[in-house]
């Protein structure tokens, strides 16, 4: 190049891809027509690109790829239609589960969890009911004054003694 500074190689790369326009395009073309070194660099870049294109030509996939693809497409719906509890749970719609087996398994787990919760809740209700039914008459409080609060140990100075059996004992045994 006579006198002028050479253009950056990245510009040559961009020019090779046809991505230059306006002033840059004019500048590069003008420079290439005058600078032997840059022209050689550009020609080398172009030769490398052509070599890649020659060695890795575009190819069509084998016919069996399409055949297998459309067998899969036609075999399964785009998004499986679920009915009953699966649909109610939003499987395939809210929850993007595509396999019916997986969806059924998920639904089973959810159902099991719900049933378990219901069972636990009922059991707790039963406990409450049993406790409520414990006949307090079986608890014989021996205190100086049974009408007093048996837990009030400070005021009257006599400790409370419970002679009755543990009212929960029979219940616990039953369990």
């Amino acid at each position, binding site marked *: 190049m006579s006198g002028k500074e050479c253009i950056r190689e990245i510009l040559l790369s961009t020019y090779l*891809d046809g991505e230059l326009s306006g002033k840059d395009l004019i500048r590069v073309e003008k420079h290439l027509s005058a600078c032997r070194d840059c022209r050689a660099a550009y020609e080398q870049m172009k030769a490398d690109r052509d070599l890649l294109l020659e*060695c890795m030509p575009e190819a*069509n996939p084998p016919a069996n790829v399409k055949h297998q693809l459309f067998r899969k497409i036609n075999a399964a719906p785009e998004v499986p239609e679920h009915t009953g509890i699966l649909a109610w749970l939003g499987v395939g719609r809210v929850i993007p589960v595509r396999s019916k087996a997986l969806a059924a398994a998920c639904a089973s787990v959810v159902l099991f969890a719900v049933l378990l919760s219901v069972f636990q809740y009922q059991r707790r209700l039963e406990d409450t009911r049993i406790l409520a039914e414990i006949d307090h008459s079986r608890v014989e409080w021996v205190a100086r004054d049974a009408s007093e609060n048996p837990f009030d140990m400070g005021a009257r100075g006599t400790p409370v003694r419970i002679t009755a059996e543990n009212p929960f004992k029979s219940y616990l045994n039953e369990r």
Partner: protein
Amino acid sequence: MANSVPPNNPEMDPLDVLGARLNKAKLGDSTAFSEIYDQFAARIYSFASRMTGSREDAEDITQDTFLLAFRSLKDLREQDHFEQWLYRIARNEVYKRQRKAKFKPDSLDDSDRGFLRILRSEDSAGDPESRMLSAELGRKVKAVFDSLPVRYKETLVLATLQGMNYEEISRILGRGLSSVKTDIYRARLIISEKLRKY
């Protein structure tokens, strides 16, 4: 089956043709999707093949890409950018396979398929010695190309071999234009430097 969209209707813009096919395919029309497949399969297969260097992987990636595309068509917002969307799916599939470290060195029959094609194409013209040289050159080019970092390889493949412009590449890779430009240039530098060593 629904009527297919005429592939070479001179009155219709190619984007309109594609749009019509996509609309039908979105409704589950597999014939329309078959036409879409025919339109893009070679590009996606070649992209996968160039990225992985393996015919088997390229076939699987092509199939998975189109299957996923068919199932996700409803999520496609910008139909004009369908091809880039398809490339993004294919690229994800390539990365997925890389993560699973399923890439294995292929036999000559597989990975050098492109180069053998060159040999075959020169059967009638060249002598055995020149064909051998071509095959040798092909292997060297492939070795150099495969040694590129994936980041550079994918930009070079898209720009040079798939013929996409920088804006399309930027959209596919989710990187800025200047980053794409720089990566392509660096990839070229590496290729040029290594090829000169041979």
